[in-house]
């Protein structure tokens, strides 16, 4: 038993048998004219309990006898109580007209999965935001909270607002950088993708496919690869960009390294990262806009042309307004992805240059605090703030760009 990671097996038994129990039992209950929803719930509880109890019993009994097989056979623990349930539950006369066995058997395990792997971690993250939690310290009996990981109330949020101390200062800097990054990325992305989509939409269908493929390629390319490539382009000594600048007599710039380099007060490193991000990301919105443009009825544009509108007027007064719902979707998605930028910055600058970090963004701050410095509580509180800001921005965008019509 010494070599068995019991915590891991406890999780396996729970997930396997809760899911199988709640997926199969409703089908059997439905077949026997019983309520499939009740069956799903019963299957979930019985499967989880049986998996835990008999998985452990099998492991303890068989480990000394067949150590190689014991762990595998322990996976069958859930069947001990589920099989009798499936076999001996009696059919009833009254039938439910709906026959929702399949529905219950799919929704219940998925809901359980979602609760266990998404809702629970989210709730835990929310809870952690109020605790000085580090996995290294011994905490209380419930989720390790309390005792060595004390409750700190709203202290972290006060630090964020006041900007006091090193953590507060770095948070405010990361928050500013994230907002600046998003403020640069979203409008530039829209300014590039909408006209480009309109141009691509107007070419021959074969070329349309070619362009769409070319522009979409960076989206499916690894971010690390993209970051490395742009890192070479921006390299101060051997980079392509400085090579071009040098050839026209401009002094090389330390794009990713020099904290003094800036353009109109915006750090050069941040601009460099924004360009790399746009290059990789804009193909995604482009494809969406091309699809949206294809859905705009030709009659509307035709009518405008008959009325004497120039191509620019058609684009401005017909195409653009009709793209509003798509602009809403793409801008919301771009804001969310901009707030989540991490890999590109981690590889290109690690948040630098400069002591506080001219490209240090919120996700990088969360990552470093959580996994490098083990300040899980502080990291969780930053993620809560980030969630609230993204939610707020999404609501604002939805309100501003909402349309009352369809075509």
């Amino acid at each position, binding site marked *: 038993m010494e070599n068995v990671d019991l*915590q891991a097996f406890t999780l396996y038994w729970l997930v396997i048998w809760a899911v199988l129990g709640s997926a199969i039992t409703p089908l059997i209950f439905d077949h026997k004219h019983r309520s499939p929803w009740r069956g799903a719930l019963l299957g979930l509880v019985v499967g989880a309990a049986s998996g835990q109890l008999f998985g452990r019993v099998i492991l303890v009994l068989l480990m000394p006898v067949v150590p190689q097989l014991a762990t595998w056979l322990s996976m069958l623990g859930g069947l001990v109580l589920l099989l009798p349930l499936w076999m001996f539950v009696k059919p009833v006369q009254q039938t439910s007209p709906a026959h929702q066995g399949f529905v219950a058997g799919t929704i219940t395990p998925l809901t359980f999965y979602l609760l266990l792997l998404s809702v629970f971690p989210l709730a835990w993250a929310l809870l952690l935001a109020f605790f000085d939690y580090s996995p290294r310290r*011994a905490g209380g009996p419930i989720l390790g909270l309390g005792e060595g990981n004390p409750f700190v109330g709203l202290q972290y949020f006060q630090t964020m607002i006041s900007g006091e101390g*090193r953590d507060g200062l770095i948070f405010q800097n990361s928050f500013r950088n994230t907002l600046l990054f998003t403020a640069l990325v979203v409008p530039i992305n829209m300014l590039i993708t909408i006209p480009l989509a309109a141009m691509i939409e107007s070419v021959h269908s074969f070329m349309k496919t070619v362009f769409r493929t070319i522009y979409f390629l960076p989206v499916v390319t690894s971010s690390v690869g993209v970051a490395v490539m742009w890192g070479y382009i921006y390299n101060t000594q051997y980079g392509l960009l400085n090579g071009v600048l040098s050839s026209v007599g401009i002094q090389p710039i330390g794009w990713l*390294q020099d*904290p003094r380099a800036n353009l109109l007060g915006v750090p050069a490193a941040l601009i460099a990262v924004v360009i790399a991000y746009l290059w990789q990301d804009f193909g995604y919105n482009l494809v969406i806009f091309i699809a949206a443009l294809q859905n705009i009825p030709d009659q509307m544009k035709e009518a405008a042309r008959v009325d004497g509108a120039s191509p620019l007027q058609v684009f401005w007064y017909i195409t653009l307004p009709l793209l509003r719902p798509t602009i809403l979707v793409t801008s919301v998605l771009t804001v969310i992805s901009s707030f989540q930028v991490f890999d590109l910055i981690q590889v290109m600058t690690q948040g630098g240059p400069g*002591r506080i970090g001219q490209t240090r963004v919120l996700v990088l701050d969360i990552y470093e605090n959580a996994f490098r410095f083990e300040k899980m509580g502080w990291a969780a509180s930053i993620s809560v703030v980030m969630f609230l800001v993204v939610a707020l921005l999404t609501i604002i965008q939805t309100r501003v760009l909402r349309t009352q019509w369809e075509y």
Partner: protein
Amino acid sequence: MRKLLITILFLMLTVTVVSAQEPVTLRLWAHQEGAFNAGTQALIDAYMAENPNVTIQMETFAYDLYIQTLQTALPAGDEADILALFGSWVCSYADRLAPMPEGVVDTSLFFEAALDGYTCNEGVYGLPQEFNLEYGAVLVNKSQFEAAGLTYPPAWADWEAFIADAKALAQTGNDGLMSVAGYHFTNADAVTFSFLAGILQNGGDYWNEDRTAFTFNTDAARTTLNQMVRMVEEGIVDPVLFNDSANWGGNAFFTGQAAITLIGPWAVYLKEDFPDFGEFDYVALPSFGGEPHFAADSGWGLTVSQNSAASDVAWDFLKFAAATSENALEWNKTSHTIPALRSLVEDEAARDAILADAPWLGSVFPLLPYGRYIGDMPDRDLAFYDIIYPYILDTLQGVMSADEALILIEEDTNSTFG
């Protein structure tokens, strides 16, 4: 009555002998590092040959995974019996480790810098296997010294002689950018350990008297930082082009972009990645000021889990592996590390045995008595890599003044005490 007593005594002795020979299985965790793991496995094999009832199973993890595993396994109590830990981490895990039983090992056998990381609240929580050194000696490139008409290998009498050589070795390309750094000391580790060593060599200290707070805003620290700034001003290194994220010291040296590089002796093995690189040496730096004092991490060593059911056997293995000269010597030779045991440096035969495999360590051995453990910091990585290094790099890059940097370093490092 006497017969009964003799029988009872005989039975007790029999039970004791039987229990002493009961099979004991220990697990040992270490990070994946070929030479280290080979050295440890050899020790395990030797120990098991001497103690047939003991089985030690080594389990290794990739470095990052190992750190995460330690962080989660120790609070959960799932860790192995014996843990290979970096000395500077030990005190942060001390409440989950088994202290050394009284009198198992004479701790004066070890260099203080190597052992002090394992000493927490006056208890010893493990034994070091290596002396970790990041400051004191530098890599020097023979061809670049000869091209500049300088004496090779260098033997700098004082700091000024060193500065003169470094200045002569620096080169600038046609584009106006530095192409060869005369002295590359602007990596995170190099900057931090230079700063700490400079403070000690300039007669100061970065700890207060009872070691409860950092004191970085001092005259010794100011003198040190100004000495570092001076090297930038004299064109010895461009800290924008040469730092942790661009032209890292080890790579810069072996690609001919740095003529002198401050780095630990482990970097000598980077040469394997650059087979065409010419001759080089590893030579001692002159002191900034007085004696060549320097701060050092406590290096890798072995510790015993508090949850080990056979902690006495585990400690016996630690004694066998780290405190027995011949075993420690074999481990140091296999892992190419600096010994933590004084006797291996002081004893001529042992020293020669190490230098036969790693001659460059000859410049390092005389420095070892001047080493001092960095001290038990609340978060060493945070203090080093996110506070001291970025502030000093900003100062070297001309973004902030030395005075401003020292105030902020002191404030921020002290805020890590929580």
